[in-house]
């Protein structure tokens, strides 16, 4: 199953006489890319810029895109993953492990929830997770991609994706 199939069978809606309907692709994928970056960064700033950069890069080379090589969404998310990684690496903005642990130990969850948005809190907790697990959370809950498609994007097996996500969500719940 490709990412297109994972997206509720929307691929057929994108097709017009054997050509991709780019407007439909944009309308469907833009919110998913946007939310992928929100989850990846854990905030709203920079998200629009990274989303725009992803689409501009994809649009520049879309005439060379071959549907038989990869689903468009797979290709698009590969570009997004790369842009996100470069951005995070350039900004070196991951919180150190200590900061995330501090969140889990200081005060009560209720008080923290009052002080920060749930997304920001999630980002702080995720900062203590390995890079791969943060990426899985963003793909699963930000982009709403199923495990099989995530496996395709990350090179992990589908069962491995499921196992890791289950464990990560359990960890987040314990630390919330």
């Amino acid at each position, binding site marked *: 199953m490709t990412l297109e199939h994972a997206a509720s069978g929307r691929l057929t809606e994108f097709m017009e006489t054997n050509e991709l309907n780019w*407007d439909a692709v*944009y309308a469907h994928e*833009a*919110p998913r890319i*946007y*939310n992928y970056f*929100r*989850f990846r960064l854990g905030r*709203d700033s920079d998200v*629009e810029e990274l*989303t*725009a950069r992803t*689409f*501009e*890069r994809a*649009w*520049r*080379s879309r*005439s*060379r*895109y*071959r549907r038989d*090589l*990869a689903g468009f969404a*797979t*290709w698009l998310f*590969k*570009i997004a*993953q*790369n842009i996100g*990684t*470069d951005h995070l690496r350039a900004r070196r903005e991951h919180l150190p492990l200590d900061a995330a642990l501090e969140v889990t130990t200081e005060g009560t*969850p209720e008080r923290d*929830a009052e002080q920060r948005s*749930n*997304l920001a809190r*999630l980002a702080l907790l995720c900062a203590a997770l390995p*890079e*791969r697990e943060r990426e899985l*959370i963003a793909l*699963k*809950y*930000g982009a*709403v991609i199923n495990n099989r498609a995530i496996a395709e994007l990350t*090179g992990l097996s589908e069962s491995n994706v499921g196992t890791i996500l289950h464990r990560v*969500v359990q960890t*987040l*719940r314990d630390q*919330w």
Partner: protein
Amino acid sequence: MKNEPDDDFLQRLRAEPSRKFLSTLKANLDRQTISQAKARRTLFRTAILAALIGGSAVAVAFVVLRGSPAARTFVRMVDIGPAQSAASKIAAERSGGGAPKSIVSPAQGGVPPASVVSGVAAAPPDASAERSRAAFVVAGPTAIILNAQDLARRSSGSNKAAEFNLTSSTEALAMFCHAYRDTAGSASTADIAGASRRILPAELETCKSNGVTHVAELHSGYEAVVLARSRLYGAPKLSARDIYLALAAEVPDPNRPQILIKNPYHTWNAVDGALLEEKIEVLGPPLSSATAAAFRQTLMVAGCATFPWLAALEQTDPKRYEKVCRTLRNDGVYRDKFERLREHLETYPNSIALLDFREVAARPDTFAAASVDGIEPGIDSIVAETYAGSRAMFMYVNTERAHSIFAMLYFVDVYRRSLADSSSITVTTLVAPQRQASARAILAPLPEMKF
């Protein structure tokens, strides 16, 4: 409503992008599409115009040359080889000579035994007869031999005047100095030797003691290969050690470094924690190609040499060194693929291609070449020999023989002229030494080495 992470809670953290953002971005993308279409139309018109001008020029040149006596003279002049009496005499002397064996494992797609790949063996039915007619012998590593064969074929329409033997540099120089015997004890000699290093003083002494006293050295350029990915994803930054650990068939066990194990690495961050957790996938030409051979001889060897005990094997156990340092893994991490390479690289950011330097240099809008140990591949770093993916190439000519065999002298002249014009070098792993040799120097009499 629960307020702790589960599937529903996490998905409720999603938000819709603002309509203003979506519409602005869409308008920008539409504008980008229109400007791309305009650029394509301009490119198409330019290509049509260039084709018309080029076609006309070819047609005029054809008409002029066809009726020109000079053209007919030229064709006769380059038809060298069998007609030369000296060549026949020398060939008769050679008929009992054995052929050297390649040191590169055929199992790795390396060079097969020399007799199989020699120029005269290209026509199997009468291979022995062809060999007996060869006027001179060229021996050396892949890039030198492939380029020499092609030059001979293009300059004379045939490469039958010469016998081409694929060997290692050391074997080629031993043949050149009349000091080579194969495992059966048969002697093989070469009139021209290609090498990826300069001849050693001791080898020159051997030449002298065996009567080879007129030797000229030609700097044949540089062999250079690169790892590259799509320009979309920027240039990878790798070390030679990363490359070796990612692609060698056997690598030192991380827990017991003195023991070799089957390569266990499948992601770049397993090779080097500073790299991304991306699947290792390297696409390249067949292992028998000049590019793959150059890759094994340069980047793989450079990475292998970062393990001192493996580097020491070159002296203590050359066969094991060859196997350990120059054998690519065959578990699918390195794959032959050149169809739709550009599209594949654009689709998969983790995919890396092994390419000739000249190919990448000619398409900077398509490929981003990896720097190795902080050095980017480029003419300057190649000529300075600081880029690990390149090495200088040399050719040694027995000038006494060249002056007595017209076909050989003519071949050497064509070869030297090719060095002044990189476009005439078709083996793309070779980079002509333009910065080193002027056309004037190349056309001067062959400078002989002092003994």
